[in-house]
């Protein structure tokens, strides 16, 4: 049939158009990842004079026993869960506020994205100074307001260090979440809220029954992006705490970096990368599946 003919031709043209991009992606993404998987089956460190020696699943066995690895996974999980939680709540509040009509809304919206647009390393540096035990402005404020008596060593205490890096991350990326959610909010027609209020709904009921279900896809997308970023967080931590104190804020990426760059344990580092990658892919795939179901629901 002619129609199939045309479709075939379009398909062929389509493939020809995307093949260069696909090749490039394979080269840039797939190759290093596959290579990491491959390298994970070798021991290549100072004890082998940096020569690769095939060692099967030895690296993975070592990982199971590696307390520092599990701690870094735990740290990453805590960091990710709390960052995302606060970013979602605050982002939603900011998005709801920005969705209201008020004077200077455009300006506020632009200012709101600024933290996200600035380089993370710079922001991390700024926060390191803010939380500085002796000169930090945060201590100064709290002491002046008499909320605390003596200055706290925010980045020097294991628990407060985690809280501090989470706070910095939330400060930096909440606006990203807010802007994504705002796009979702703005796609909801005002008519729906009016019809719902005539139906007898309170604003809180409208929020639960109209707003939340209709921006669920945007929430999932925002959380997906944020999960991928938070799980691989490196620069913020490296600059603020370097993973310390005593490994209290050491994330997986920091640990991998140390393994490879400081201990020159390339084989084990590669195995760590492979496992981290699999965890990431698994969560992203699950979320993607959920998103698909949400979108099917909305149709």
């Amino acid at each position: 049939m002619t129609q199939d003919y045309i479709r075939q031709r379009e398909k062929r043209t389509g493939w020809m158009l995307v093949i260069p991009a696909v090749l490039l992606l394979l080269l840039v993404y797939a190759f290093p990842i596959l290579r990491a998987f491959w390298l994970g089956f070798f021991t290549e460190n100072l004890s082998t004079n940096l020569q690769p020696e095939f060692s099967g699943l030895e690296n993975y066995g070592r990982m199971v026993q590696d307390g520092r690895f599990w701690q870094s996974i735990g740290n990453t999980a805590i960091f990710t869960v709390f960052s995302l939680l606060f970013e979602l709540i605050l982002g939603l509040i900011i998005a709801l506020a920005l969705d209201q009509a008020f004077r200077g809304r455009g300006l506020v919206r632009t200012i709101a994205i600024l933290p996200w647009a600035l380089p993370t390393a710079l922001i991390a540096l700024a926060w390191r100074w803010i939380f500085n035990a002796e000169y930090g402005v945060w201590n100064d404020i709290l002491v002046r307001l008499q909320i605390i008596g003596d200055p706290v060593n925010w980045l020097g205490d294991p628990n407060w260090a985690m809280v501090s890096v989470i706070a910095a991350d939330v400060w930096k990326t909440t606006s990203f979440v807010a802007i994504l959610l705002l796009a979702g909010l703005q796609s909801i027609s005002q008519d729906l809220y009016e019809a719902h209020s005539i139906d007898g709904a309170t604003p809180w009921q409208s929020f639960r029954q109209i707003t939340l279900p209709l921006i669920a896809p945007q929430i999932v997308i925002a959380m997906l992006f944020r999960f991928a970023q938070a799980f691989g967080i490196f620069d913020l931590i490296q600059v603020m705490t370097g993973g310390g104190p005593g490994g209290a804020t050491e994330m997986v990426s920091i640990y991998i970096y140390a393994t490879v760059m400081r201990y020159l344990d390339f084989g084990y580092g590669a195995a760590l990368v492979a496992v981290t990658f699999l965890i990431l892919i698994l969560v992203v795939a699950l979320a993607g599946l959920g998103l698909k179901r949400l979108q099917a629901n909305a149709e």
Partner: protein
Amino acid sequence: MAKLELQNLTKAYSQKIVPVKDLSLSVEDGEFLTLVGPSGCGKSTILRMIAGLDQPTEGRVLIGGKDVNPLAPGDRNIAMVFQSYALYPHMSVQQNIASGLKLRNLATGDIQKRVQDASRVLGLDPLLDRRPAKLSGGQRQRVALARALVRNPDVFLLDEPLSNLDALLREQVRADLKQIFEDQQSPVVYVTHDQTEAMTLSSKVAVLSDGYLQQLGSPNEIYKTPANRFVASFIGSPQMNIIPLERVNNAVLLGDSKVDLPTNLPAKSSVIMGIRPEHLRLPREGDHQIVQGNVFLVENLGMSDLISLRVHGDDNLTLRALLPSDATWSRENLKLALPPESIHWFDTETEARLN
């Protein structure tokens, strides 16, 4: 069941934008009031004030004698059908229809029964599990209607509910609407810019222009005795012939022909004459007011022909007349009778009706 009253309702968005000006009217139980007027004349604003979505700048809305100005939309027991239908996209048809009842905490059995009744009346039974996105325009429209009907409200409000349907469907749904609301006891306020809907559906029509109420009356009154030039030209299709004329004694000159004025008109030097195309006819025995001219356009409307005539004696003067398509006539020197009882007279300055 409750009478709806609007008292001196005014809405000003700013000093310049005042879409509703001092509107007073009432709608009794079982009455079907249509607000009709051109786009932007404030119809939706009036509905929104009745619904409580907008607060009036001045004046009051009363339902069943009770001032509802301080009440939130949900506490007024009204139901509204939006032009966009405003169906909840993430809910099934069933959930959409039931939403207002659920929010009011009705018993599940009661909700089910009411939803069933409404869905049967509107033929929605096979669609109850679908989402709005999977419905046609006409089906969505019926879901929106069902959502209003199940509520059993004190007042129904409908904002141009047919304007998103194609012409054929619109006519059909219009007939359905008429039947459905004939059985309802509550007042209905229906907004449209389409005068055919206004004429066919309503027991009472309010013609609006510029934020002012131009005329309030039965469709028949509005058609037969339009209160002013605006109503005359807005209501009726094809549009009424409206001709400003100079006065000569107790008559006006329509090209070469003389048309007598009624005796009780005020003595002014000019006057506006109006006559509907369907009231111009081929002369019969006894007709004495006759106009003559050449036909320059014939539009076949099926049942009748709409002809445009250039009047002898004044090349700028054209008249449109609706003649039965089986009538025989010639394009040259066609004579048409102007029955005196079908002529409307309006004041040149105030544009108000004179006869």
